[in-house]
């Protein structure tokens, strides 16, 4: 069992799948005010977080495998009326140039970045979980509700450039957004009732689906800004430090010519009649009665961006122990404001570790760990925002973070 847990930790920290590399970069940044020259940064992140989906189940989706009936039942019993889940991934590379571009701003230079991002978020009821993973057996003689279910999944490329301050490390880039996948489901009202013997099904469904369907490689186009603003506060006599305002993917894009499907139906089904089976269009007639409407339309969608404000740690601090804390918010309705706070320990200049606690987001409490190794030209940072999730199957999330920086 112990070896399995170690394996899980290593697997998570090593981000051993390409899919796992997609995500937001949230590893605590060490603020370094020394002047930078050429610098290449690679950042990768994966997270999955939920209020009620435990890791024993979610690892079956991350690493594959069979979800047995016992596990499905156990997780189903743990669901509440309202549950949230989110996942995301990011891999990005950026280059920061050392060249001065404004006479009056000697520290300002240019930078370019490209990244690939995937993000999904959803909210669902315990009944919907039961229908999907157990079937209708628990609901015979009863009703399953999935009103207010929603889900969204998207994947897009971001390519852009901007300016950065070589000393404060603040930057601002403008990026073109090229969506490659998009799917959104929204159920305003939904329920299904089954008779005791399963010979009657009563369905009430009012919802819509928006799905990118263009044959083009890119399904639309948009724009977003990324930025870091590092703002020193306090003085040497009082509590001081640097507050960083982080913005990523703050923008929107348009999905071109997407499939828009609406369903508004109230049906009672007790089986086909013989005539319906014998007539060529008998079964089709039942489908028609579901009142499915399919059209195409182009629609603007907010990007799954986020804003984070928090105190960061200083790379060249005279103290070995520093605090960091802040708040993070995604631009979607499923995500709850996430607050975090942690302690950073730097026993020697080349190496530092830290721990943090966070609450909110797509789930509840998580405990994070990270470690940084720095040389004159190289920085390697590994971390997780959910160390307990990496170990215990009873937890509700996974997180893996990596940052590689090469100073030339």
């Amino acid at each position: 069992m112990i070896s399995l847990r170690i394996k899980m930790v290593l697997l998570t920290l090593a981000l051993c799948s390409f899919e796992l590399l997609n995500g937001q970069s949230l590893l605590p940044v060490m603020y370094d005010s020394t002047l930078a020259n050429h610098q290449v940064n690679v950042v990768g992140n994966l997270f999955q977080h939920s209020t009620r989906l435990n890791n024993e189940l979610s690892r079956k989706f991350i690493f594959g495998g069979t979800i047995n009936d016992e596990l499905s039942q156990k997780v189903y019993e743990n669901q509440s009326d309202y549950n949230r889940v989110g996942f995301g991934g990011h891999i990005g590379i950026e280059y920061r140039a050392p060249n001065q571009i404004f006479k009056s701003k000697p520290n300002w230079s240019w930078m370019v970045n490209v990244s690939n991002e995937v993000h999904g978020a959803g909210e669902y009821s315990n009944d919907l979980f039961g229908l999907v993973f157990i079937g209708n057996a628990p609901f015979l003689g009863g009703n399953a509700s999935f009103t207010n279910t929603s889900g969204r999944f998207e994947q897009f490329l971001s390519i852009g450039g901007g300016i950065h301050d070589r000393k404060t490390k603040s930057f601002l880039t403008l990026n073109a957004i090229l969506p490659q996948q998009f799917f959104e489901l929204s159920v305003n009202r939904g329920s299904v009732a089954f008779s005791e013997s399963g010979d009657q099904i009563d369905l009430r469904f009012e919802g819509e689906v928006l799905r990118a369907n263009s044959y083009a490689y890119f399904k639309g186009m948009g724009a977003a800004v990324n930025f870091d603003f590092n703002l020193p506060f306090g003085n040497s006599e009082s509590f001081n430090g640097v507050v960083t305002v982080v913005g990523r993917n703050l923008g929107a894009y348009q999905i071109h010519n997407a499939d828009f499907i609406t369903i508004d139906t109230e049906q009672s089904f007790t089986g086909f009649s013989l005539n319906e089976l014998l007539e060529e269009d008998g079964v089709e007639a039942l489908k028609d009665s579901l009142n499915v409407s399919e059209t195409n339309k182009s629609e603007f969608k907010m990007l799954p961006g986020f804003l984070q404000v928090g105190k960061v740690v200083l790379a060249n601090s005279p103290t070995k122990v520093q605090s960091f804390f802040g708040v993070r918010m995604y631009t979607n309705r499923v995500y709850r404001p996430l607050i975090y706070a942690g302690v950073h320990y730097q026993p020697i200049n080349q190496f530092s570790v830290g721990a943090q606690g966070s609450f909110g987001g797509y789930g509840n409490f998580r405990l994070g760990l990270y470690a940084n190794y720095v040389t004159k030209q190289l920085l390697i940072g590994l971390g997780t925002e959910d160390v307990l999730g990496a170990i215990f199957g009873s937890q509700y999330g996974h997180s893996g973070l990596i940052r590689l920086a090469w100073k030339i």
Partner: protein
Amino acid sequence: MKHKIFIFMAVLLVSMACRKEKTNWTSDWVVPIVNDSLLIKNYVNDSTLDINSDQSIQVIADRTLLNLDLSELIKIPDTSIVQTFAISFASLELSPGFTFIDEVKEHEFTFDDVVLREARLKSGKAFIRIENPIPTKGIFTISLPGTEKNGQEFSHTETIDGGTIVEPGVGFITLDLSGYTIDMKGVDGDLYNMLRSKMNVKTDPNGPTVTITDQNIFRTNVEFKGLVVDYAKGYFGNITFSDTTTVNVDELSNVVGGAINVDDINLDLIISNGIDVRAQGNISLFESVNYSNNVVSLNHPYFDQNLNLNPATGQWQSLTPSELYFTFDNSTGNLKGFLENLGSTYNVGYAITLNPYGNTSNGNDVLYPQSDVKVKLKANFPLLVGADDLTLQDTFAIDFKNDNKLLRVESGRFILKSTNTFPFGAEVQLTLLDKHKNTLKVLNSNGKISPALTNGNTDGHIPIEEQIEFVVDEAVTEALIDTKYLMVRAQFSSTYLNNNVVYSNAALKFLLSSQLKLKASL
């Protein structure tokens, strides 16, 4: 430096090295598939079945085996007639509003062997071309004496622009003749197949005075097209309709085996003559062809004989066809064997001749709108049937979509719940077929639907509720992937071999549902 680049790249490659296997889970679903009832009462009011006072079912069938197309009997060919008119003087000065009238002219329709004295048109049109050769507008009135509708003679007036002898003014008119009755006896009433017409020309009352000569010819060209008669009087000729017609009984086309026993049968084969004309009927063949191409020809002492058919009596709404009966019962010919052959195809050979002895009606044959000549089958007997492994088989196109990579059936069972009050039971078998209709897998049930027993009052059968199941195992789920057709085979047997009375409460209510374990793979 190279060392550091290597470390940098190594971390990236390790990060991308792993790949994920599929995530699988199963869920259990109970879903109704087919839910229906076969009630004998539903067939009572459609002139097929009736209920006797003891609640037993009586077969009362009245079916038309063939209905002759009489439109070919009196068919007016498309006809074109030209009527011209010129003055009989060398020249004449016409003041405005001057009127001159042509004489009534007769036009003959050409028929082979039909003599019509009177006819009513169900449909048809006249396309008229009028030429005006004088240099002022002409007001043309076309009328058809003897052609009336609701007591009004057919007449149409059209103004045609003026012209010259070389280039006359031309007008085109299309007239609907539907519903007009034509007296075809000619001006003096002693002819036949005649249509009369008359033309009236008036010069423009507001036009100039013009001079015409006998070279100015007023010409009218009338084309009759698509004239269909629904009433006719005359002599319809000596004509014979003969053919061998095939009647398919779809309800029996699914029988593939077994036998039935029928008793106490009464059937009448009838030739019906709805025309007021003498005729002769001849039935030369009535044979049954079953699923194994076994042919049984029905015998009757009157078959293959020319039998006289009287003219229909009455007229218009009181028209009553005359009928020639061929009656069959258990003592006549081989009716029992004929019916027990369970033919799904029946061939009827017939010949019906009108006016076999010539114009004996003196031109008074009458065809009314509702006239028809038919061969009918009438039945009236109690439903007493025994079934001995009577096997019905049918094939439905179906796609279980079990090759779906996201969701597929892993195992389960199909459950058939039934409530039966027929004196017939059945053993049901399902066969999965591929796109070429080759057998992939046969699903046998774990039981059968039993025939019902008569209740104590002998006015109905006691309902039997049963449940049979078809197991869907791994082999079946594999076969479902390629299944494109489902063949259902039901083998029926009755409570008794003979004389099973079917009562009015006879019904088979059934619900086919599935209890399936679905496997999802992501």
